[in-house]
């Protein structure tokens, strides 16, 4: 034996092929889109100018912004809680390791692909036409992307870590729900908490795009200050949002550590 492979011959060929495919896809894409790099680098010199233009602070907006933040937070929180429940249920139905029915799992996954593909404007239309303007509409419109993301992440976590526990609990004859509540939830809870916090930020951001359906909140304020080119207000609001999110993330980390190391 002169040469000893570390990877079997087949998988080396496969790896090369894979790299080749990925490279080909990339370069095809590059050639499809006209990317003018020189223009890009030339215009980099605009950066300081534009940024300095945006560097301004307008403290007068703070009271208004605080009020809107409460609205946005309330909406984001409410949506999040509902989305967590919906997504959890669906992901337990669809995760390949625990699904009660393979076809149901495929159906749910496909269904979500479709739901996610429909742009928010379309949802906005349908929601407004049936519910009118207001927070109820905003709630529904925000629910969809939130469930989409959480569903995806929960399913991933369950599929990744669950199999041993599922096996053990299955062998005791435990029901589907028992396996979930006694096995998977304790196991996945830390990662679930992470996903939920990631999504909470997403939700607040989502609420910014909800001007379409007449939902107020910090997003509306921000859109207004941008469309009137009021950079002082804009920057102030952004700083406030970042601070808020920072606080939320701190809190989430605390909770996560409590769950991870504590005896909850």
């Amino acid at each position, binding site marked *: 034996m002169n040469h000893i492979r570390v990877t079997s011959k087949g998988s080396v060929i496969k790896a090369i092929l894979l790299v080749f495919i990925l490279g080909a896809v990339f370069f095809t894409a590059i050639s499809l889109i006209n990317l003018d790099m020189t223009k890009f680098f030339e215009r980099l010199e605009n950066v300081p100018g534009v940024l300095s233009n945006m560097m301004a602070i307008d403290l007068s907006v703070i009271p208004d912004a605080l009020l809107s933040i409460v609205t946005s937070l309330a909406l984001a929180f409410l949506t999040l809680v509902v989305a967590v429940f919906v997504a959890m249920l669906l992901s337990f139905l669809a995760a390949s390791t625990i699904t009660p029915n393979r076809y149901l799992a495929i159906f749910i996954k496909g269904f979500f692909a479709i739901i996610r593909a429909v742009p928010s404007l379309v949802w906005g239309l349908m929601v407004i036409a049936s519910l009118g303007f207001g927070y109820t509409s905003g709630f529904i419109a925000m629910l969809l992307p939130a469930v989409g993301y959480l569903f995806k992440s929960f399913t991933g976590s369950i599929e990744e870590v669950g199999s041993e526990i599922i*096996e*053990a609990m299955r*062998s*005791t*004859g435990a*029901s589907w729900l*028992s396996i979930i509540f006694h096995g998977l939830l*304790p*196991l996945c809870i830390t990662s679930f908490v992470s996903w939920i916090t990631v999504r909470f930020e997403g939700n607040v951001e989502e609420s910014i795009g909800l001007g379409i359906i007449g939902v107020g909140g910090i997003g509306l304020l921000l859109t207004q200050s941008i469309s009137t080119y009021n950079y002082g207000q804009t920057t102030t609001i952004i700083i406030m949002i970042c601070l808020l999110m920072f606080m939320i993330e701190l809190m989430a980390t605390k909770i996560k550590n409590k769950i991870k190391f504590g*005896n909850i």
Partner: protein
Amino acid sequence: MKPLLSIKNLVKVYGKDTRALNGISLDFYPGEFIVVIGPSGAGKSTFIRCINRLVDPSEGELIFDGLHMEKLSGRKLRKQRAQIGMIFQHYNLVGRTNVIKNVLHGQLSNIPLYKSLLGLYPYEDKKEAVELLKKVGLEDQIYKRADELSGGQMQRVGICRAILQRPKLLLADEPIASLDPISANIVMQQLHTISIEKKLTCIVNLHQVDYAKKYATRIIGIKQGKVVFDGAPSQLTDEMVRNIYEGKESQMTLQAGNHPVSLAVGQNNE
């Protein structure tokens, strides 16, 4: 007597060409204490996991308690599984949950969900759980998280869980691999006692031939996915044991090693 579990021509192929089980046909009767021995990779774990369908067999029939296990699914499968306890080679405990809850998981199939969620397990069950834990020497660890236990402690928790399930058939995959001799004896003794008292059938994978001989009522030797021995412990001669464990693998390694290696320590010395 009607067999509790009847296996006919069981075959399991992993992937394309790993034939882990190669046509196994066996009948098991109530109250039997069966120890399965065989070299590592022979298919013992696969065999045991096929019985309660954690692994789906590729071919063959599995008739447990009158029902074709290989055809069941959903609620019926669950009901059958509740009759079959299992002790895992890798324990498979819920790490973030405490010891007693892990043990009580053995009773999940018998109480409604809301009760188990509120921790309203019947007093009897809780008492038995605590007694079992005491018996295996874990009374100090009852409220410890399962992932904070030592290897042997986890294994004992897994054993208590399976016993608390009060099954008709108990499958155990190397239940004493991580246990010290005393704990190992206590566990084997406990299984043995239950098997006699409750006419529980036990199928236990073991690597320790001496334990097998001491506790089994019947020993089955598996090698390369086939049954090569099936009989009473007294019939298992040293010759036979050597035959079971020596395979293509071991022959090679025996040549490769520096010294000729004795077959096993303890009772099985040459």
